[in-house]
């Protein structure tokens, strides 16, 4: 198994919103999808997933409903609300700004000004 990395503080909401924005999916599906999308690098702490989903739901960014899965089991499927979609845009912009800034610092090669 390749080396894994814990989630950066504060990024869980963004990642969840992004993953759910692709299609409605259940908690287990979100776990799988996140591992797959990050090339098995980002590992979701299983225990923190559901409280986070609950938090997003309370904020009105996602909603859920019970559906039948491919292998015929009942599971709660989450999807984005319009407010969630807007939030994703905001968070993504914020993340990009922050990441650029962090990269700029980390990759600094020039002399001190």
């Amino acid at each position, binding site marked *: 198994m390749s080396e894994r990395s814990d989630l950066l503080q504060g990024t869980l909401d963004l990642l969840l919103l992004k993953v759910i924005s692709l299609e409605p999916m*259940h*908690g*287990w599906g979100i*776990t799988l999808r996140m591992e797959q999308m990050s090339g098995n690098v980002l590992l979701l*702490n*299983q*225990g923190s*997933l*559901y*409280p986070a989903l*609950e*938090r997003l739901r*309370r*904020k*009105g960014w996602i909603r859920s409903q*019970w559906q039948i899965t491919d292998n015929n*089991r*009942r*599971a*709660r499927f989450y999807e984005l609300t319009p407010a969630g979609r807007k939030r994703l845009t905001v968070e993504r912009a914020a993340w990009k700004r922050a990441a650029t800034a962090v990269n700029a610092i980390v990759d600094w090669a020039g002399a001190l000004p």
Partner: protein
Amino acid sequence: MSAWSDVVHRVRALVRGAHEDTAHQDEVRFHLDMLTARHEAQGLGPDEARRRAHLEFGAAGDIRERAREQRGAAVVDDLLRDLRHGIRQLRSRPVFTLTITATLALAIGTATAVFSAADRVLLRPAPYTDAASLVAVWETDSRSGTTREPGSLPDYLDLRSRARTLAAIEGVIGTIETLSAPNTEPARISGLAVTGGWFQLFDARPSRGRLFSAAETSPGGARVALISESLWRARFNARDDIVGQVVSLSDVATEIVGVVPDDSDFGLDQLHDRAAYHSAYEATGRVDLWLPLQATVADLPRETHPLLMIGRIARGSSVSAAQAEVTTIMRDLEAQYPENTARGAFVESFEEVVLGPVRPLFALLAAAAALLALVATVNVANLLLVHGTSRAREVALRGALGASGTRLGRQFAAESALLVTGGAVAGLGLAALILFGIRLTGPASVPRLSGVALDPRSIAVAVAMAGVVGAVFSLLPALAAFRNDPMAVLKGEAGTTTMTKGGQRLRNVLVIAQLALCVTLAVCSGLVIRSFVAVLKVDPGFSSSGVVKAEYELPASRYPRDFSKFPNFTEITQFTDRVLAAARAVPGVEAAAIAGAHPLDEGFTNSWRVVGREAESADWPEISVRLITPGYPETMGLQLQHGRNFGAGDVGNAAPVALINATTARRFFAGVDPIGQQISFWGMSRRIVGVVKDERIHGLTAPAPPATYIPFHQAPGSGGVLLVRSRRPAEAVVVDVRRLMAATDPQLATFGLEPFSTTLGTSVGQRRFAVTLMSGFAFVTCLLVLVGVQGVVSYTAAQRTREIGIRQALGASRAASASLILRGLAQLVATGLVLGVAGALAGSGLLGSLLFGVSRLDAVTFVGAPLMVGLVAVVAGLVPAWRATLRAPLQAIREI
């Protein structure tokens, strides 16, 4: 997230909490299954795969907890936990819990009951439009000094046409009618004959049919009647075709033109009750029959006063303006008509007439209930304080283990809430019970008392009271417990010195307050009880035991009174003789008589003269005229003081004779022998043949008025009362009398058929009611004081166990140890008693007319009641103190 959506979310979480929990469990189980499956696919055994899945996921319960925290359900969880903990705490101290709940129930129950009754009787507005502008218009008589007399029909007509300050004025005359319908027993009904605008004055509307027309309320109008809804249901089975039915009213065919709601009669019984005298009418708590007043001024001339008048103050005018104007009109009438000599008017708020007499009673009950509630509250506060202090160790320990202050405070609040809720629920039950008792035994003279019940208003009062009490209580013990130094408590010095100085003082003040309130209440109820005893001891001038009475009203159709033949009304005389003969033939009957009115019925009065002293006697008050058959003194135990009783010879054609009572002899024949003197009224003179003792015909508490007795056969009345003295039990005699009345005239309605002792009891009903409630309050308060003092002394004893144990080990006697504990109590009791007596001195003035034959500063009561309370307090203290001296040495040794 906004505060609002947070609230919404939390509320929804509360409602859906359980459902959400299972949903979460399903979701987590699904996830775990999937994780397990993946591990299995990677080659792990099923058990190991599941174990790994659980490890990775973390404790499932923990997730649930955190998810729930997110949902905001934690607050409720905490609350439930507090309540569960509270229930455990309370169940571990059943005596403490029961005492407090019962005490709170008493306080809340009595206060709620008294409020409900007062609310229903006093606070609700009269069921009339703008009742505040209604006034009773009385006539006054400056010669007799009476201020509340009915008016005459001509006076009424003059007032109606001349008074501008009154928008309307109407009159009513009470009447008693016999209602007969085919195949039913005839019933006798109290009814009212009303003037044309009566119902319009009150804005009363018929629920069926119509009101009286102008023609019907004029002389010579058609014979019609309105009936109450109750009568419609009771006598006519609520039949739909009631309007237009013709019934027989005292043998006159009468058409029923409508049905009026039951509350159309509010206050009219009380109006009759307040009048110095009134026409034949018996207050039954409800008017069932309404007739149009069709009398002419020829029927009811200016010197007869049957009409009770009610007016409505004109817009922009006032009671005092109306009083001034009506007085002016009456002065004109006085100048104009000799019949109106000395006549004036008194205008009085109608609501005051109805509710005024019962206000003091309810003020007293409210004060008593408030005192009781205070004592109970103080008691509970004290118990909780003691309890809180004794829990100091628990609080200190839990505090040391990390429980936050708010957490502990919440814990106490939860316990108080449980106690108060229990007390409130039990209290409402108690209130319902008390109100049931009031409905059952309350005197009919108090308006609307029969309708008292728990309603939303009274429940709201109970809940509010519980809320306030609960809030106070939840603070008290917490304060007491927190005030202690945890270190001292935990080091074990707690058992001896947990009381802070302030806590001790507060507790002492509470005990003193409780004792003082109890003494005040005990003295006041003692005064009321002694007054009641004094009332029952009054010599009424007649003897009620063994006597049964039955009243009747003879219809004019079959028992005509042809005044050209006065006093030989053959049919009435024959009826009287036949009834008396039948009564005397009943086995066991010792004596029987017929009278115009029974001894507790004030009957009617007449103006009178003494022959030879006409000028002098013209200014005297009217005299009560009592019609009796010769057997009356024997039957009622009326004693002859002088002269002779009536005999069989005093019949219609014989020489007119009269007896006078002692009051008449004393006031008007001072220094003269009345026997042989002549008195005159009704245009004829009578010779006085005897003087009899006074009968208290105005009730036990009122002195006898001047009265004269005349032979029934010399002035036969259409109404009468049969009085029978028998050796047999009253119930059997009642049956006998009903049978003999029915046998003599099957169509006659007999009413008021009861043992005369019952009549006597009813006449003091309002007083008995006050006595019952007051002594109930005093008794319960004493009980509470007993519990309260007992609790405080046990606590003091427990606090000093070690000290007492050591003293006893060193040779102190048990009596000395007990007195050590009780010394403090003695001071408290003494202070409480002194304050209580002071309170009673100030408060006994409130008792007003409830006092009778007893001074409001009655020494016996003012010494006896505090002594009794003090005794109760000492007994309450002795028991736990003595017990402590038994236990102390052992316990002290164990603790060392």
